């Protein structure tokens, strides 16, 4: 179907145009705007028998009538060159936890053509593709995002404008109504992560932008057949010559994976004394035992802790004043020690440590997370005396 636009002349002179001297040229990267009419007219000066004749202007078919405005412009109308770019923004996957909803990946759509256009947007899951060196496994052992949606950012795009975050309240348009030549818009794919997703899984998705008529979003077809000099033809100039571009992004499952190890050490007993070279205290009544609980996070996300809890073993009494400054719990993260005092009546001094109902709890101000990696393992130590 032919897409017709009324051609219009840019501010022309009322009389013979000898060339628009110093008219500002359009400096668009996308080029001269569609529907602009290009006009030109030649003039010939000559003599007959040594006498100058009235100059004659040209016309498309040939003009010999002398004088100003007796000729006619040779013209053609600039056609609609459709081109677009879709870019993944950020160069990295979006990290998500299992079951996380409304998580988003970011894209930018740019109109590289010479006329304002609208764009239909659609999102899809990929299977078996590799992006950012990670592969989205196809089939049942892979993961697919649920509830894929596309939203256009209401934030400005281009120039020094920063990349926006997805704002559910403001970003409600699901298609791009119109982009001027060289203008861009940020687009989000928003999706929900299955609760069954496991650490390290990858879900690749892609965004497709399809060029449409601005505002109405009616379909556009390339003009078939011969050029018409007087109407605006449509030319698809994008990669693939189909007025559409598709680009991928990625969701990456990251979970914490904690392991717990518990140790006990005899510090001293009343008979042998304190452990040392050649001294091996035994776990007899009156002996002091030190318990250590180590949490190691082998996952790819830091584990936000609530509390580490351990029951005070039966037939023992929790030891106070064990460590520096009168504290009784030692917390080691990597090579760094910190201390707190667990009161028998609970965490009355709000340092994150307390004992209640025979259970020592360490959390809050004392420990807040177990970061990923063996070097960040958290060890909690306390001592008891065997009754």
């Amino acid at each position, binding site marked *: 179907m032919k897409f017709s636009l009324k051609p219009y002349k840019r501010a022309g002179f*009322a*009389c*013979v*145009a*000898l*060339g*628009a*001297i110093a008219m500002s*040229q359009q400096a668009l990267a*996308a*080029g*001269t705007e569609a529907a*602009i009419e*290009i*006009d*030109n*007219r*030649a*003039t*010939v*000066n*000559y*003599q*007959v*028998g*040594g*006498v*100058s*004749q*009235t*100059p*004659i*202007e*040209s*016309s*498309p*078919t*040939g*003009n*010999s*009538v*002398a*004088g*100003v*405005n*007796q*000729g006619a412009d*040779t*013209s*053609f*109308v*600039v*056609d609609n*060159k459709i081109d677009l770019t879709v870019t993944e923004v950020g160069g990295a996957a979006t990290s998500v936890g299992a079951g996380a909803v409304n998580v988003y990946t970011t894209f930018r759509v740019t109109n590289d053509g*010479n006329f304002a256009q609208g764009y239909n947007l659609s999102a899809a899951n990929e299977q078996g593709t590799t992006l950012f060196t990670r592969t989205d496994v196809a089939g049942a052992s892979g993961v697919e995002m649920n509830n894929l949606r596309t939203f256009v950012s209401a934030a400005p795009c281009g120039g020094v404008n920063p990349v926006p975050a997805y704002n559910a309240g403001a970003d409600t348009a699901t298609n791009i109504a119109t982009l001027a030549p060289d203008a861009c818009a940020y687009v989000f794919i928003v999706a929900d992560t299955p609760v069954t997703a496991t650490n390290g899984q990858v879900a690749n998705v892609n965004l497709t932008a399809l060029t449409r008529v601005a505002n109405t979003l009616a379909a556009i077809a390339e003009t078939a057949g*011969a*050029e018409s*000099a007087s109407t605006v*033809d449509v030319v698809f*100039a994008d990669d693939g010559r189909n007025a559409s571009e598709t680009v991928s992004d990625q969701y990456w499952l990251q979970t914490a994976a904690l392991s717990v190890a518990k140790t006990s050490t005899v510090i001293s007993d009343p008979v042998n004394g304190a452990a040392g070279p050649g001294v091996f205290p035994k776990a007899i009544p009156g002996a002091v035992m030190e318990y250590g609980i180590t949490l190691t996070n082998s996952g790819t996300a830091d584990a936000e802790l609530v509390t580490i809890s351990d029951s005070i073993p039966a037939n023992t009494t929790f030891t106070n004043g064990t460590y520096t400054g009168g504290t009784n719990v030692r917390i080691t993260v990597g090579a760094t020690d910190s201390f707190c005092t667990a009161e028998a009546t609970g965490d009355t001094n709000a340092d994150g440590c307390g004992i209640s109902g025979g259970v020592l709890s360490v959390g809050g101000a004392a420990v807040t997370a177990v970061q990923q990696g063996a070097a960040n393992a958290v060890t909690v130590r306390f001592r008891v005396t065997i009754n």
Partner: protein
Amino acid sequence: MFMGKKFIAAAALIACGFGSQAFAEDGCIVLKSAAEVEKEVVDASGNKTMKLVAVDKAVPGVEVVWTVTANNKCKKPSEKVAINLPVPEHMTYVPDSAVGPGSDVSFSVDGKTFAANGQLTVQENGAARPARHDEFRHVRWTFKDSLQPGATAMARFRAVLN
């Protein structure tokens, strides 16, 4: 065909509103102007040739061939024939593309001063420098010999749509 009055042709381009009387008088030259593009044409034997056809797919970047022909339809020769054709707005002259058998080609930026390629200058920061091809806004072909009755002169240049 004689005209009753003369005016200096040397530097004369028709200025807007200069000649207020519009003489609808037939002159001696049929002046025709065409805007075309080169298209590759393959014949039945598979031979490829380049052909000029009306502008097709006028998108930014297209190279348009502007051609002017002047045919002398009188019984006397036309002397000192000079054809002027602007480089239209939104287009850029393609370097060294102006041709016109039997003519000297000159260029202008302001429409008043014409000079041969490489000799046209513009003023910048108070000094003269050579005009660049993308600054040419007018092309002129000055034919050395008279145009004989029935003969046709040709003038051409290429320009790219911005």
